[in-house]
């Protein structure tokens, strides 16, 4: 008597799909998947516990490494939550800069997702083209922030530094290049027989199932439900911008691919509109003194030669924190208890120095009122929410991140069961699981 048993296959934590570490234990009947058990937590880096041990301003590098392909969106989310808790508002120009950097991050995230999933299906050239486009954007990001990937550019009350003078021209050139790459990728993939057959009708999830699992982001929009935090709950200056939210209908892999490609185009549109609408930058220097390097000002102040220092302007090494008075008003909120003072004040007079010390010394720093607040931001994968509980002291009491791909991974077995083993690869690629965000 022959007996049929199903086979347990372990798609182990370290696997070629370069999305991150996750373990899927599959029960197979021949090639058909009968059951999937997903085990995560292989990249648990205790983000929430680490945030409780450091001051508020020191949490930003930890937030960078949550969703590491779109790091600025995490930074912006944390900063917006904290600003809601503190009850402060930031200048217009800083809002526009945050939106520009968020949308650049969103484009890099979608480029990485579509590129990596195309590579897993065999389209190696598309991966190389998309990484080339990602490099262009990373060069843009590096021009302002100094780093390519983990940037920590956003500060509480604004951003770290203003845009460089050539940024707008460079950005228009790079955006044109990225558009060319998107057109090339579209030509290579969209009507490609192999790509189409492997993605159409695979990994289907219905809208009711998606809502029951509280899935958000491109995964939900591909099923036809129009929920985008930027439209439902506009933050920063999204209500002044004109953009569309692409929707799918079938909820399969192909629709998710189309939604991501269309969202990239919309993000590039948003960036161009921001450049046209952004308010003017640094105030004209109405200081009558000369421009001196920061180190010189420190030295002369230490030696007591402070005559005339109040009118001098400081040129700052870009690696130092804070900013000079010329840029200060346009990129930082006007709140002494939260934002580092302008460098001319820090080095030139004692009030500025004391202000700086009170924000930086251990035991002092930003002290929000006792309370709790939740703020959702549209991450590249869905609704990224930060929940901060403050007890009135300088360390956060509890920082909770609602990761967008957590419910998606919980809903993944529904997409996979009943399909074939080989469908795992495109479906998992279209989920865009980022382990840093899933496991925190």
């Amino acid at each position, binding site marked *: 008597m022959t007996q049929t048993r199903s086979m347990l296959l372990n798609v182990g934590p370290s696997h070629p799909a370069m999305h991150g570490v996750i373990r899927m234990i599959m029960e197979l009947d021949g090639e058909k998947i009968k059951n999937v058990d997903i085990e995560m937590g292989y990249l648990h880096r*205790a983000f*929430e516990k680490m945030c409780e041990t450091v001051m508020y301003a020191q949490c930003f590098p930890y937030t960078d490494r949550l969703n590491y392909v779109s790091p600025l969106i995490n930074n912006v989310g944390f900063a917006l939550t904290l600003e809601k808790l503190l009850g402060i508002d930031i200048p217009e120009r800083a809002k526009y800069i945050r939106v520009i950097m968020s949308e650049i991050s969103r484009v890099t995230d979608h480029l990485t997702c579509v590129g990596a999933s195309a590579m897993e299906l065999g389209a190696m050239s598309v991966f190389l083209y998309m990484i080339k486009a990602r490099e262009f954007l990373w060069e843009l990001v590096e021009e302002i922030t100094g780093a390519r990937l983990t940037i920590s550019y956003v500060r509480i009350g604004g951003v770290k530094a203003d845009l460089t003078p050539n940024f707008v021209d460079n950005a228009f050139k790079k955006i044109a290049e990225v558009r060319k790459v998107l057109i090339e990728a579209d030509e290579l993939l969209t009507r490609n027989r192999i790509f189409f057959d492997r993605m159409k009708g695979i990994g289907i999830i219905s809208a009711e199932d998606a*809502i*029951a699992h509280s899935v958000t982001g491109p995964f939900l929009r591909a099923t036809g439900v129009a929920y985008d935090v930027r439209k439902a709950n506009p933050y920063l200056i999204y209500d002044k911008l004109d953009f569309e939210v692409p929707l799918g209908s079938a909820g399969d892999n192909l629709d998710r691919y189309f939604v991501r490609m269309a969202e990239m185009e919309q993000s590039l549109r948003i960036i161009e509109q921001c450049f046209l609408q952004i308010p003017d930058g640094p105030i004209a220097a109405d200081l009558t003194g000369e421009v001196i390097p920061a180190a010189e000002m420190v030295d002369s102040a230490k030696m007591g030669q402070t005559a005339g220092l109040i009118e001098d302007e400081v040129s700052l090494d870009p690696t130092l924190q804070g900013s000079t008075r010329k840029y200060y008003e346009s990129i930082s909120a006007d709140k002494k208890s939260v934002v580092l003072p302008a460098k001319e004040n820090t080095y030139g007079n004692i009030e500025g120095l004391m202000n700086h010390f009170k924000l930086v010394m251990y035991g002092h720093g930003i002290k929000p009122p006792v309370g*709790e607040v*939740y703020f959702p931001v549209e991450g590249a994968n869905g609704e990224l*929410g930060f929940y901060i*509980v403050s*007890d009135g002291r300088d360390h956060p009491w509890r920082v909770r991140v*609602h990761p967008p791909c957590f419910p998606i991974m919980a809903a993944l077995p529904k997409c996979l069961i009943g399909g074939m083993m080989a469908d795992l690869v495109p479906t998992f690629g279209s989920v865009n699981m980022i382990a840093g965000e899933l496991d925190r």
Partner: protein
Amino acid sequence: MSPLEKVQEQFTAAIIETHSFRGDETAVIRPESLLAVAKFLKETPELDFNFLMDVTAVDYLFFAGGRIQKEFRFEMVYHFFSLKHNHRIRIKVPVDEKNLEVDTLNSLWVSADWYEREVWDMFGIKFKGHPNLKRILMYEEFVGHALRKDYPVNKRQPLIGPQN
């Protein structure tokens, strides 16, 4: 009427306190009435909270250096969102240290499954009626619950390799 006012009107006995700090409507309710309130939130047409956005817990041991005394050590925090009406509400449920059990919301929202597993893993709060309460972020051999305030941040329990 805002969702908070509707909940207050329906469940006056179950609510301990409400507040609306920075515009976030919050209600603190008794643990016994969690399922009733959740059902009300989901099934009333004017509220229609079909998204269980987030489930987490907070440990209030030695809150604010001991200056603010909370009655219970843990508090479960639920964030709900309604797609149709575009409103949110937060429900908090205090949990006593000696009786770390709360009803599961898995029967109403399927997404509660993994969120509650994470709360069990990190805080040690059990859920009555949960189908599969196992650790999700840490490994099964891990002893203790990591996000509690009395677990030191760098106490490691390595599976292989030296103790560090």
